């Protein structure tokens, strides 16, 4: 139930949520909803977000109570099944995943999925911070500079405008303008990147043996495409997130990290920021208005080799 604790075990806490605007929180919910599977947010996360939204939007308690009462009466009159009703309202059974019996409201997932969820939630918050800050002429992402403390890594923007092109994607002969609500299913990461205006030569061509593509999705958030791919091996996962920023302004973006040192690794004349958080490693870099993030159970050596593979083609 919402409000049970202030700190969520996967990293979402009330203080962070309250710093986001209602619009940002709603975008977070939409992004989670659109994720094809392994949704990043647990039902407790969602309820916690909704709790923050509700407190902001329902300041008039009497009006709120009256509205709920009206809906309750409508439910009883128009929707509540009566004895003898056999047919479901729905063409398909909508009852979904049942949280485990008697336990806390945490979906039953394997430890590696839990770790991956931590990373994905962090990535979503990062993307939201980037995408949903003040709208303005544009941003030169080359000017994003990394700074960090013991607990956070921050990309700070120097606020320079840059002209960007608006890509369109073409799949099966139909044109899908970036920013439409249509979701296209891809089977190839290269296709997903190219269709969204990102060269497939800008992602690693090497990664450790034994990983296979588990999930690939493209989301559209306020005209900015996000390509997300998850690779899994028998006992490890890692993800690559590619966020093509079309025309945004951002003051700064915060990544959660642990107390270990941030490694600045230069390759291809680009600085890659390698950091750790609990038992995952993450690398973030910016190239030509695209923010790249790789997260997962990888070693620093593996991450460096993956980075080098981008520029050794």
């Amino acid at each position, binding site marked *: 139930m919402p409000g049970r604790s202030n700190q969520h075990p996967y990293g979402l806490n009330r203080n962070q949520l309250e710093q986001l605007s209602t619009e940002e929180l709603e975008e977070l919910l939409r992004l989670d909803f659109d994720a094809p599977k392994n949704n990043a947010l647990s039902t407790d996360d969602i309820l916690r977000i909704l709790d923050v939204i509700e407190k902001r939007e329902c300041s008039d308690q009497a009006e709120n109570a009256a509205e*709920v009462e009206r*809906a*309750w009466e409508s439910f009883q009159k128009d929707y509540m*099944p009566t004895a003898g009703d056999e*047919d479901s309202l729905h*063409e398909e059974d*909508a009852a979904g995943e*049942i949280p485990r019996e008697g*336990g806390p409201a945490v979906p039953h997932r394997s430890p590696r999925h839990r770790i991956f969820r931590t990373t994905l939630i962090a990535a979503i918050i990062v993307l939201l911070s980037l995408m949903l800050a003040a709208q303005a002429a544009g941003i030169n992402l080359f000017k994003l500079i990394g700074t960090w403390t013991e607990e956070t890594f921050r990309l700070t923007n120097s606020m320079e405008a840059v002209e960007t092109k608006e890509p369109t994607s073409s799949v099966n002969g139909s044109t899908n303008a970036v920013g439409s609500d249509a979701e296209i299913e891809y089977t190839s990461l290269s296709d997903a990147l190219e269709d969204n205006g990102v060269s497939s030569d800008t992602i690693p061509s090497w990664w450790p043996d034994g990983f296979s593509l588990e999930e690939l999705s493209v989301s559209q958030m306020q005209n900015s495409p996000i390509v997300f791919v998850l690779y899994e091996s028998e006992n490890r996962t890692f993800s690559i997130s590619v966020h093509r920023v079309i025309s945004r302004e951002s003051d700064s973006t915060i990544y959660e990290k642990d107390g270990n040192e941030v490694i600045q690794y230069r390759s291809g004349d680009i600085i890659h920021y390698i950091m750790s958080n609990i038992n995952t490693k993450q690398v973030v870099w910016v190239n030509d208005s695209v923010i790249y993030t790789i997260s997962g159970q990888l070693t620093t050596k593996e991450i460096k080799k993956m980075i080098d593979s981008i520029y050794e083609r």
Partner: protein
Amino acid sequence: MSVERPEDKELLDGLYHELFRKLFAYAKALLHSDDLAEEAVQDTFKIACEKINKMTGSGNPAGWLVTTLKNVIRDMQKSRQSLYYYMAHTVSFDDIPDIGKPDEENVDMLYHGLASEEDFALLKCIVLKKYSYLEAAQQFGISVEACKKRVQRIKKRLRENFEK
């Protein structure tokens, strides 16, 4: 199945009053419509009535309701998209200059024979005007359940016609 046991009724009443605003806010963020959002929440609680043992057995009724609401919203979107798909593909594309805005007069004529005038008026409310089933039911003076069944029957005819 209806909710018969007093303790179940009490549980449902409590959950509804505690969670309606939250679930509504969630549905509205995804559906961008107050009426559709409310319908999604009402349908979610209808399922809760039908499967109250599953909900209580989950140990986390609030989480169960959120998950069910998610599935209801997906179901709503899929159902409305497929209705629109059958409508759009039953009509010649030459008669629809912009696929996003079907010409209602042409659609009326071309659909003649597949649905009665009233049935088609109902379909237009749901698909083109994006009414909730409750709004459409109120306009046509029928129950929400009857409204859904009528739309399902029309959809079945359109699908059969499409598959010919």
